[in-house]
């Protein structure tokens, strides 16, 4: 058995460009499932089912316009998504037909983060604000930008948030790291 030895810098990408996959398939692979290697790091399933393929003029070598139904971290988006600007990345993988059913079985989805709409002020600013306004417990708005891709949102009126952004350390995810410091 031959030994494969890789030399040079490491890359996070692994796979082919989208055009390399799609250009070799019957009917440009409509109905097939492709996967980004980058998204396989998440515990939840992420994959894309090809709906439509458009070739682009020759100026954009390596690129292709593909409309897909995207499932990211177990959540399937409502609208089809067009992959164009990232299609040149050599990070796509085709799922064989016989593995599709197995691969696309979504068992768990990413838990939606519901952010508290308000948070504490940083200590010094808090002191200043208390000094100026005589409020006992001043709070500030949490910055949040609406985006279709986000798996988080701000808590609505009367809703209980599941994440309060703390000022300071907060509760560590891995307390083991802080064993001798805290």
């Amino acid at each position: 058995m031959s030994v494969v030895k890789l030399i040079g810098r490491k890359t996070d990408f692994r796979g082919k460009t989208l055009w390399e996959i799609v250009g070799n398939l019957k009917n440009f692979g409509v109905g097939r499932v492709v996967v980004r290697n980058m998204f396989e790091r998440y515990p939840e399933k992420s994959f894309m089912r090809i709906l439509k393929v458009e070739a682009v003029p020759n100026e954009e070598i390596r690129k292709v316009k593909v409309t897909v139904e995207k499932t990211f971290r177990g959540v399937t988006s409502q609208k089809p998504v067009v992959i164009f600007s990232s299609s040149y990345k050599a990070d796509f993988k085709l799922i064989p037909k016989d593995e599709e059913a197995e691969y696309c079985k979504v068992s768990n989805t990413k838990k939606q983060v519901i952010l508290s709409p308000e948070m504490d002020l940083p200590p010094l600013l808090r002191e200043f604000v208390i000094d100026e306004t005589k409020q006992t417990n001043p709070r500030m708005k949490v910055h949040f930008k609406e985006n279709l891709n986000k798996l988080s949102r701000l808590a609505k009126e009367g809703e209980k948030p599941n994440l309060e952004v703390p000022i300071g350390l907060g509760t560590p995810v891995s307390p083991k790291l802080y064993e001798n410091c805290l």
Partner: protein
Amino acid sequence: MLRSAATNLLRQADQNLGHSSFNLQFVRYRRKPRWLPVAKSKMFRIPEHPEQSDEEKAELLRLHNHYRTQMRSVRLFLREEAQRIRQTSSADHLVMTPEEEEAEFQKCVAINDEWNKKISEERNQRLEADLQKTKEFVDERLEAFRERKEEHIENIDAIVKAEKEMAKTFITREKLDEAIETALANPIDYNFSIDLKRNMYHGRLTRPEKEQRQLEAAN
């Protein structure tokens, strides 16, 4: 190569330093400049990335997420605060009612009026003084002009008087014959002679006294 070039330059600088202001300061380019390619010796070097455990990754992700949200929230807070202050107040008040604003405006107007009054008084005084000064100056100049004119007229009068006096001796048509006769009767001899001792002898035929005497004696 680069280093050797720099050394050469430095050597030149050392030579020149004694008698010129040529002074080199090397601060940058301790390392390779950006535009040079990777050094041959470093071409196949692969930087090693430290391995992060899943726990560490998760914790760092949490910390970074929180940090970014905190910073953006603080910025948002300060931006909104600044906007609110800009809209509602000019300086120390955070909020002013329309009545307060009106009162403030009236106060400003009163102060402004007071200043205007004070300045107008000062200005009037100054203008008065200026007017007085101008008046004095004009009067002085008028007086001087008058004096000059009088003097001029006096001079003219004197000249006219003198001319009139002179006019009595003028030779008119009537007096012409008389004048000719007088002139013929009293011939004037403008000739003169000078000897070596600068003695002047008027008259065409006048001689020095000594010679005259000798001549007379001879006759």
